[in-house]
């Protein structure tokens, strides 16, 4: 009985009170509520920072587990992951993230790799556009035409030499896209409100790490 209260009732009561407090702080102009909300936000930041540490420990445990199992080739990547992880962690903690040592390994390893990953998607993107963007139906045709207009209007030379492309792009973006995306945003907003109420009133309990209703 007491375990059930600790594991289910207490977290639900805390969720309910915190939810009410944050809603109250947003809609009411009560200084004491503001102070309490600010205090909770500070907790939120600390928990987020703690979660990052927890994530690091989790990565180490999973990688060690993979290395111990030695299934497939995954364990080799796990070894590499641990080497790089500890290289960055030791340098960062030992010399500080603003140190020349940390900057050196960041600028020579992470930065070039990261910078390569993003443009590399362009190759796959172009190949995918070329092979899949086909006018098979009327809707598909509209999709291809709109894509072509946006593509050309985003090329600075085309928008400068063919000003009507800019007008056309602006109309598509400001009228068609904005109208459609606003509908999506409203849907998301209403869904978020519903989810918020379900969490506050204890109808949704998956955030507590267990199945709904258990």
């Amino acid at each position: 009985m007491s375990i059930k209260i600790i594991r289910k009732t207490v977290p639900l009561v805390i969720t309910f009170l915190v939810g009410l407090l944050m809603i109250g702080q947003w809609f009411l102009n009560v200084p004491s509520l503001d102070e309490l909300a600010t205090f909770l936000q500070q907790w939120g930041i600390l928990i987020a920072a703690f979660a990052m540490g927890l994530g690091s420990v989790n990565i180490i445990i999973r990688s060690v587990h993979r290395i111990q199992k030695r299934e497939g080739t995954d364990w080799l990547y796990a070894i590499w992951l641990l080497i790089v992880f500890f290289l960055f962690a030791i340098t960062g903690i030992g010399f500080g993230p603003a140190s020349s040592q940390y900057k050196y390994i960041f600028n020579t390893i992470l930065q070039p790799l990261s910078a390569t990953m993003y443009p590399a998607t362009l190759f796959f993107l172009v190949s995918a556009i070329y092979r899949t963007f086909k006018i098979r139906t009327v809707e598909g045709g509209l999709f291809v035409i709109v894509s072509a207009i946006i593509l050309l209007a985003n090329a600075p030379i085309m928008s400068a030499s063919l000003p009507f492309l800019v007008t056309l792009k602006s109309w598509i973006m400001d009228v068609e896209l904005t109208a459609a995306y606003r509908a999506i945003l409203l849907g998301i907003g209403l869904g978020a409100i519903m989810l918020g109420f379900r969490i506050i009133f204890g109808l949704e309990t998956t955030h507590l790490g267990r199945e709904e209703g258990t």
Partner: protein
Amino acid sequence: MAGKQDSIWIKLQHIPREILYILIILSMIVPLLRPMGLPITISPQTESLFDSLNTLEPGDVMLEFIDWSAGSMSFHEPGCIAVSFQAVKQGAKLVFLSSATEGPLMYELMLEKFQPVFDEAGYVYGEDYVYLGYVAGQETALAAIASDIRTAFSIDYYGTPLDEIPLMQTVHNYADYSMIISYTMGSPESFVRQFNTQYNVITHIHCGEMMTPTILPFWASGQITGLLNGGVGAAEMEVLNKRPGDAVKLTDVYSFSNILVFIFLLIGNVGFIMQRRMGK
């Protein structure tokens, strides 16, 4: 004869991947080696940002969220430099901070290029600009920064308590921020929610081209005042500053690569339509 024509249309749809990739590489390398200085038109979103920056008065405080990573550095860094240049020109005070883990290193790399501007303007660290470092917590952290920046940061990036930094002695919460700008590859909606919707702080966004369509409705509604669209937006800002930099150098690449993608789109569809017509 028909069979031969058919094979041409099929071939048009199946150009080897290697040729595609080689042409993409050429479309990026050639303009970089031989820049052509192709013309650039200014979008209303960029113009709106520029106009808003020009309303800054000496002493006004602007928050700049360095939230990009190495992947988007090619356009976020020039965008940040162009925006900061205009803010410094207006005499505004700059508070840099990050809600992304790579932020601190991105700030340092940006500062290496921007330091001469600070030096020329006589800007002193701690008095005219400051870097607070990284704070975890994403939207919760943004809410805290808006309501009371000291709940998110007690010291700056170099370990100095905020109360000992002259600039920060007058900066406490949303009421002290003239405007904010976020340079991000993620979803910028949280900045709109926490700064503009709740406190009506002027909010600007510099995001990647892929995110622009999702954020445009907020610009149309006035919740975002200025919006820089990826590399093109950064280049437009440099043109407005009359200080062409790294982003302008890349516009030729954008022009060539976009046109190349369009040509492939066209070739693929011509082949597909003609093949279907021949089949009938």
